[in-house]
């Protein structure tokens, strides 16, 4: 792994940073404004902040955090539904740790647990099958969130339930796909954008090819890793393309991302799942923007297995939807750092440490 560790060398980071700033200056001279880039993935947002790059670039490149955080885009009504399911006396809810503190209309899954519901944090979706086997008298329901990196693991859990004849297991699917939301973003044209830093781990599954559609919109994208030098390299490439007025999609994370992605994982998704018009928190419904279980697997589909009254979620002043579309910065939300803090988040962008609002709160609010 020395090759990868090298992406973290202080000396290399510093010279990379200098190169990026240099490129950004050229851009600015050419266009009379700062370049505007969107990192689609929340882990990129976090890495920018943690590494100090965001801070170092603040007068050189405008970085906008995009909609690539599963926590931030999960609709309130899904949390409300999970809480309803959690409140059933014989249910066990399994969730990734990330979702525990996401506020629904009235409470989060953490609150539900505090109030006595059996809510368990798992690391791997497969673990929920084990929990179902160990609790044959209970209904185990997995909150199935995630983008394309995680979705194959949800399909795999269904396969596992099938193979092991586990009948007390189901998934509440509320997954998200990257391409539809990017299309919506660029389509809306509200946004001035000079390129996308594309999500490295989603690309592992989808492949470089998947993002070539950006060129049709005359936009560039660079698939990037998460180490400081990779981030800087990605930005540098986007700035160069932009300055050269080229629209291209570059794979700058070749050691894990292939042209066609992971075909085994894609096959697994295709086998169990089909397209669905998914609700995105703060953005609304986007057609074919999520995957749900095919009807032949509806015995594993919590939405079909249980009757959940899905009410209209309570309205708040949270502007997460705009934040993750890059339309406003968190500081423009009137609740930011007032009613809404990482400790008592109003919107999901404040929950995950990689949520844009949380990142701003943690790293940008001061010094």
């Amino acid at each position: 792994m020395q090759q990868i560790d090298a992406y973290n060398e202080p000396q290399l980071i510093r010279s990379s940073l200098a190169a990026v700033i240099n490129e950004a200056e050229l851009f600015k001279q050419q266009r009379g404004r700062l370049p505007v880039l969107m990192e689609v993935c929340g882990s990129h947002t976090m890495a920018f902040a943690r590494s100090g790059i965001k801070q170092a670039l603040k007068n050189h490149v405008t970085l906008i955090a995009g909609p690539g955080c599963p926590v931030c885009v999960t609709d309130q009504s899904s949390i409300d539904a999970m809480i309803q399911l959690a409140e059933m006396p014989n249910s066990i809810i399994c969730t990734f740790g990330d979702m525990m503190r996401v506020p629904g209309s009235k409470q989060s899954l953490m609150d539900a647990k505090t109030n006595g519901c059996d809510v368990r944090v798992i690391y791997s979706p497969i673990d929920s099958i084990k929990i179902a086997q160990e609790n044959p008298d209970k209904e185990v329901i997995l909150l199935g969130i995630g983008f394309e990196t995680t979705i194959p693991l949800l399909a795999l859990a269904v396969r596992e339930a099938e193979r092991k004849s586990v009948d007390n297991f189901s998934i509440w699917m509320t997954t998200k796909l990257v391409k539809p939301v990017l299309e919506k973003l660029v389509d809306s044209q509200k946004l001035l954008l000079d390129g996308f830093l594309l999500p490295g781990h989603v690309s592992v599954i989808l492949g470089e090819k998947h993002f070539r559609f950006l060129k049709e919109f005359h936009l560039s994208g660079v698939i990037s890793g998460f180490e400081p030098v990779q981030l800087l390299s990605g930005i540098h490439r986007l700035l160069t393309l932009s300055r050269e007025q080229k629209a291209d999609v570059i794979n700058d994370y070749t050691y894990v991302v292939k042209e066609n992605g992971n075909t085994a994982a894609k096959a697994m998704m295709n086998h169990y799942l089909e397209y669905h018009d998914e609700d995105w928190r703060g953005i609304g419904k986007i057609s074919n923007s999520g995957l749900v279980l095919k009807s032949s697997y509806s015995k594993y589909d919590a939405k079909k297995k249980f009757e959940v009254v899905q009410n209209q979620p309570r309205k708040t002043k949270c502007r997460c939807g705009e934040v993750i579309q890059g339309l406003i910065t968190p500081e423009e939300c009137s609740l930011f750092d007032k009613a809404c803090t990482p400790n008592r988040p109003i919107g999901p962008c404040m929950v995950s440490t990689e949520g844009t609002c949380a990142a701003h709160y943690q790293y940008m609010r001061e010094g």
Partner: protein
Amino acid sequence: MVQRISLAHGEGGELTHQLIQEVFMSAFSSKKEIQHDSAVFPIEGKRIAVTTDSYVVQPIFFPGGNIGKLAITGTVNDLAVCCAVPKMITAGFILEEGFALSDLNKIVHSMAEEAKAANVKIVAGDTKVVEKGSADGIFINTTGIGAISEQVCSPAIKKGDCVVVSGTIGDHGIAILSARNQLGLLTDVQSDCASLHSLIQSLLEQVDGIRLMRDPTRGGLATSLVELCEDFQFSVELEEDLIPIRREVTGACNILGFDPLYLANEGKVVIVCDSTNKDKVIEIMQNHKYGEEAKVIGKVISVNDSNGKLYSRTQIGTTRRIHRLNGMILPRIC
């Protein structure tokens, strides 16, 4: 809606802080004392330090120790970091009906052994038994009483003072997590669980300019330093690269999406000291079996700062603020 106690209230971070402020300090009106490692007060003209902690760790036996050893070291350390020489400890046991007597014996013997090593006497005890299902095997409360040393800290913190940690961080947190056998993590990491009274006593006796000490337990190094900064009104800048972290601990954190700065330690002390004495501090620590990997990890960047803060310096020279633990440490996939 009824407000209820959540697990996060017990993680040593933001919610614990709030609970202490809003419930305990307001009712007991005992100001700061209640949230420190030990309370120091005069009794019959002498200065005495007192600390109390309940131990509820699961599993009760873990690599590097058990709940009994921890109950002694934790309380010894809370006294030691307040410059008190631990003298006596009381032990209160809450046992669940059905708890194996052999386990109790093992635990009690660990306590006796650790107390002997720390030269502290166990002077009073209590045992309660609750119905099956009303407790998780065994809980132990220890309360420690110490006499304030002749050598104490001189908390006149100056800009440029050094922050030193006595060794690798996060070992206890990862050892417990992998002993719990829940998330599939397999490590050889041992809890660092140890009594630091002798290490600390050596420092106090041999070096001047020790300003402050704290044992970064629940909430981890980050939370302890944030609290020191707030309580003593100074700001610190850490060099994260310098913080000693075991390779396996970093590996485990990478897998599960944890930040080692928030993981619990049970045998580490973090010290603020005069920078002119830092080499001596490091030397003394490194000569002690519990300080072999001591490192200077940061410095005081401002004092008399009514709003003291903790920062971390990144590799490219910018800084970012570090807050106390928020919520709970949970594995993340994103």
